[in-house]
């Protein structure tokens, strides 16, 4: 198992190295093949590990990385059903996206840099997935942040793309600071920073420490998973190539935050405060992002806000104590959301990168394959029965409702509202793109390379079907996924609600989701001459704020970024050069003589200067001595 896991990590890493060192000197085809093989190989090993490691839970060490005194960090792995499943998903989606990228990037000459970063990303993501030691996990954690930065700004000549990358790196790193502090606290409390050890010894944590740690972990997860208030980077991240958005900003990296919380759930769940905070953040974000998605005009931005909103659901599920629900949601979301992004990539490719959905319309006739694929994704995202997405979301909503805490009745209402909004914005997007009369952007439709559409079918099938893996007995399933994940610490296999209630809520959820589709049809459907036109116009007016993400970005720029830049200038010129430096130099010049140092140099009065500086420092040293004296 050690070898298999090591190879799973080494393949993408070797791929990245190959691209960096040799990529430019081999034929394009070879470079592309190498990139896909590196990731495909990782998928093969992930599958092997999945099968061989069925229902086992082991921690193993690759090599000792840092060892000083009692601070010992190894490159290691904690392999259990959770990481097995995550690794399988990550490598599978990555493989598909690498193959898709061959088609997507076929006109770009800088493909080696692209594949190098992409392979490196897969490596980093697998490190997050497998690592046992939190500091080793941090390698992946920051590694994906770097790759995301480099790939968002991949088309660096355009300033706004580079800016978006930088913003993503900065905001996620604000979250990473909390990760670092949590590592420090874990080390002080446990003398150990491995997940398996910490989870096995949570009994030693006092309530206060558990709350602090839980909140720190939440904050680090919020950075990576773009939860409020650290959301603003994700919509901007759409400046990157679309396959990157699909892989990093929909399926994998952004779910790393959720994964971290599941991985360390035994710590988080110790503190009711932290759990309530997780659920609260998730709810507010889910609603905020769903509303913002309704206002977007750019196809990728709709999907980006949708991702933020769906990540909110995963947070809610964790807060409600339903790990399996959260993980199931994470998996099926990874499939259908990357599918939707990749479809968007096809559409943008065909329409010469014109992304305004209200300039599209009637695309069904031009790209029937994409239409069906997109429909599959939209149905799953909107949680329309009988797709798997529906059953997954149903379980999630049920577990919220079933939570006895008072807070969760509010959370439940929020989640329901967001659920309605989800299907509304999803089908707003769908109808605008495919159903409306042909729009302005559809003048010259480029053919889409076959490789870009044909590789998407597995995603479509999994997007719809992944949810069936966890079909409850009521619907004729056997909750396979729940059974598989039941052994991870803190998992609750069955929600344990009244069966009658279960049916009722399921019907209610289905009705709500379908209502979203109906409303979307009435507002944005093909028949424009509806009585709803007035409403549409009203809505469009209101959506100005939503389009801007409710001005959160503006607040950041004016309250933090600009003052930081201004103050840096002031600090430099006034504090450092005028006050400090000026003060010391003046001390050396003696006060009455305000002549330039250069003149001192030329008139040979260096000795005065030196003498005074010496005196000044002597005074300073005595000052030091005095201050230490008090602390002695």
């Amino acid at each position, binding site marked *: 198992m050690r070898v298999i896991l090591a190879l799973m990590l080494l393949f993408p890493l070797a791929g990245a190295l190959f691209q960096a060192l040799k990529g430019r000197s081999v034929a394009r085809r070879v470079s592309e093949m190498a990139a896909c093989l590196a990731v495909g190989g990782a998928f093969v090993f992930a599958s092997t590990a999945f099968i061989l490691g069925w229902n086992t839970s082991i921690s193993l060490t690759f090599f000792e990385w840092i*060892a000083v005194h009692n601070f010992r960090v190894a490159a290691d792995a904690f392999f259990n059903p959770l990481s097995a499943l995550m690794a399988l998903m990550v490598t599978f989606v990555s493989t598909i996206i690498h193959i898709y990228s061959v088609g997507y990037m076929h006109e770009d000459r800088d493909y080696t840099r692209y594949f190098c970063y992409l392979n490196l990303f897969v490596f980093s993501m697998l490190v997050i997935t497998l690592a046992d030691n939190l*500091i080793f996990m941090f390698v992946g954690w920051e590694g994906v942040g770097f790759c995301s930065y480099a790939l968002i700004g991949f088309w*660096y000549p355009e300033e706004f793309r580079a800016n978006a990358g930088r913003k993503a790196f900065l905001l996620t790193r604000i979250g990473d*600071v909390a990760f670092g502090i949590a590592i*420090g606290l874990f080390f002080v409390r446990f003398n150990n920073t491995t997940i398996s050890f910490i989870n096995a010894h949570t009994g030693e944590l006092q309530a206060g420490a558990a709350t602090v740690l839980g909140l720190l972990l939440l904050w680090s997860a919020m950075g990576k998973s773009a939860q409020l208030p650290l959301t603003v980077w994700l919509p901007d991240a759409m400046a990157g190539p679309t396959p990157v958005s699909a892989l990093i900003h929909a399926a994998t990296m952004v779910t790393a935050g959720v994964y971290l919380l599941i991985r360390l759930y035994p710590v988080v769940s110790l503190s009711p405060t932290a759990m309530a905070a997780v659920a609260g953040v998730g709810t507010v974000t889910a609603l905020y992002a769903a509303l913002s998605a309704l206002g977007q005009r750019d196809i990728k931005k709709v999907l980006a806000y949708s991702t933020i909103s769906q990540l909110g659901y995963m947070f809610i599920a964790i807060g409600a104590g339903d790990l399996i629900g959260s993980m199931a949601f994470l998996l099926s979301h990874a499939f259908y959301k990357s599918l939707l992004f990749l479809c968007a990539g096809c559409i943008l490719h065909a329409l010469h990168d014109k992304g305004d959905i209200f300039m599209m319309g009637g695309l069904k006739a031009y790209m029937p394959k994409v239409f069906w694929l997109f429909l599959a994704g939209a149905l799953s995202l909107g949680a329309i029965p009988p797709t798997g997405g529906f059953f997954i979301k149903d379980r999630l909503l049920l577990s919220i409702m079933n939570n006895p805490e008072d807070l969760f009745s509010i959370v439940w209402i929020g989640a329901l509202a967001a659920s309605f909004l989800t299907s509304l914005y999803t089908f707003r997007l769908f109808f605008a793109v495919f159903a409306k009369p042909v729009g302005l952007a559809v003048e010259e439709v480029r053919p889409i390379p076959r490789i870009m559409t044909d590789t998407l079918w597995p995603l479509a099938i999994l997007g719809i079907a992944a949810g069936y893996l966890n079909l409850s007995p009521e619907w004729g399933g056997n909750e396979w996924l729940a059974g598989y994940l039941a052994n991870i610490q803190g998992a609750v296999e069955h929600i344990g609600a009244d069966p009658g209630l279960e049916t009722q809520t399921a019907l209610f959820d289905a009705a709500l989701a379908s209502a979203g589709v109906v409303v979307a049809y009435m507002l944005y459907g093909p028949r424009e001459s509806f009585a709803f036109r007035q409403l549409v116009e009203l809505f469009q007016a209101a959506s100005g704020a939503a389009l801007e993400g409710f001005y959160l970005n503006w607040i950041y720029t004016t309250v933090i970024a600009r003052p930081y830049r201004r103050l840096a*200038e002031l*600090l*430099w010129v006034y504090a450092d050069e005028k006050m400090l430096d000026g003060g010391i130099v003046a001390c050396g010049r003696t006060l009455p003589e305000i002549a330039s140092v250069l003149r001192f140099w030329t008139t040979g009065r260096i000795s005065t200067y030196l003498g005074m500086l010496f005196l000044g420092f002597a005074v300073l040293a005595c000052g*030091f001595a005095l201050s230490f004296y008090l602390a002695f």
Partner: protein
Amino acid sequence: MLTVIIFLPLAGALAALALWHKPKICRWMSFSVSIADLLLVASLSFGGLRTGSAGSWLLLEDHAWMESLGVRYSLGLDGISYLLIFLTALLGALSVLVSWKQIEEKVGLFHFFLLAMQAGVMGVFLATDLFLFYLFWELQLIPMFFIIGIWGHAGRIFATVKFVMFSIAGSLLMLVALVALYILRGHATGHYTFSLFMLTGFPLSKTAELLIFSAFLLAFAIKIPVFPVHTWLPDAHTEAPTAGSVILAGLLLKTGAYALLRFAFPLFPNAARASVPVLITAGLIGLFYASWIAFAQRDMKRLVAYSSIAHMGLILIGLAVWNSITVSGAVLQMINHGITTSAMFILVGMLDERTRTRDLAEMGGIWGQMPIFSAFFLLFAMSSIGLPGLNNFIGEILILVGAFATHPGAAMIAFGGMVVTLVYLLRLVQETLYGEPRSEFPAMWDITGREAAILVPLALAVLVIGFYPGPVLDLMQGPINSIVGGGIGRIAALP
């Protein structure tokens, strides 16, 4: 052996002076001398570095010198000084390569100063007699004065005078304190000596210890440099030629931190303990203040110079917390900073040679013109921000996590340094590499073979230390345990 290592560069320096009229031969000669020195240092590790007979010391040399004054010529090599002289030899050789095209006037003289400085730095890292240490301390200063003053940029005179004034004022104060210590001990025991080993553990009166310690501290703090006596550094770096910046950032700053660890703390443990809160505060202020100011810089070299101050702030915190984890982190970080910051200065220098400017406002879009150069630039910038998997991260995490047990508040604040560091370095990367080119430069060429020979060893060091720091950390464990064990705060304080 240690003597050979120190004096080989000095011999080379004299040879360079003799070859002053043949610049080409002079360059090759200097390069081979510094490579020979590097090989000598490397060969030490084959001689069984792990088996120290005298405690954690691997090699000791001791000869009578000025017997009547109690001054001895004594050198000592342990794991810490081994790593630092290795770095010195490496950066020494690279500095010759860096100056190959940049220095065209008075080539012999330049190499004389360069090699003499290398000898001085080696001496500082090896001396165990305080008088000898002081001599080497001053020896490294004078060549730098001339290197900046003669081969520097437009404002070089002012910068170099300021640099020397700060250094000399600090070291004169140290000299006074040194002599005071010498007399106090001689007076009390009847045996006058400058030996580090004999002076360690000598009980001083409270006031005397504090005063002498403060003088040492100030001299070292100026060199590190610690906020608020850092203001000489940005000017010195901005005006220095690339090799000067490499030696300054890579080595001279390290001598300050090294001296703090080797001399100031072990000699005056009580005073050192009292100073911990002040030092940690100064380190934290340096980290944030310098990072913040770095963000406003337009001159690339000045930006890197301020980043140097910020990084040294973290090293100071690691030393001040004073347990084996943080001190290991601090020593490793000295090496890392030597590698990464030198590389940044070299890259800026290379760009300057092509564009004749270091103004960020004129850069942009370099990636399109020099992809290999840019990849190196990105790698070293990422190393500088402490991206895990690269060298700086190891040192930083050791300092930060190690500090948690005793100074949780400071450690938490210092973690925030991750963000402010990222802010200015991403700005540097973006303004330089990304965007559309903002100016037309007549000739842009990607890195040459000579430049690759400079950058590849540094890049390898970044990756190797990042992925597998074990051997480096093992090397410093022995000496660190013996130094820290006898100092303020034992490791037993950790949980």
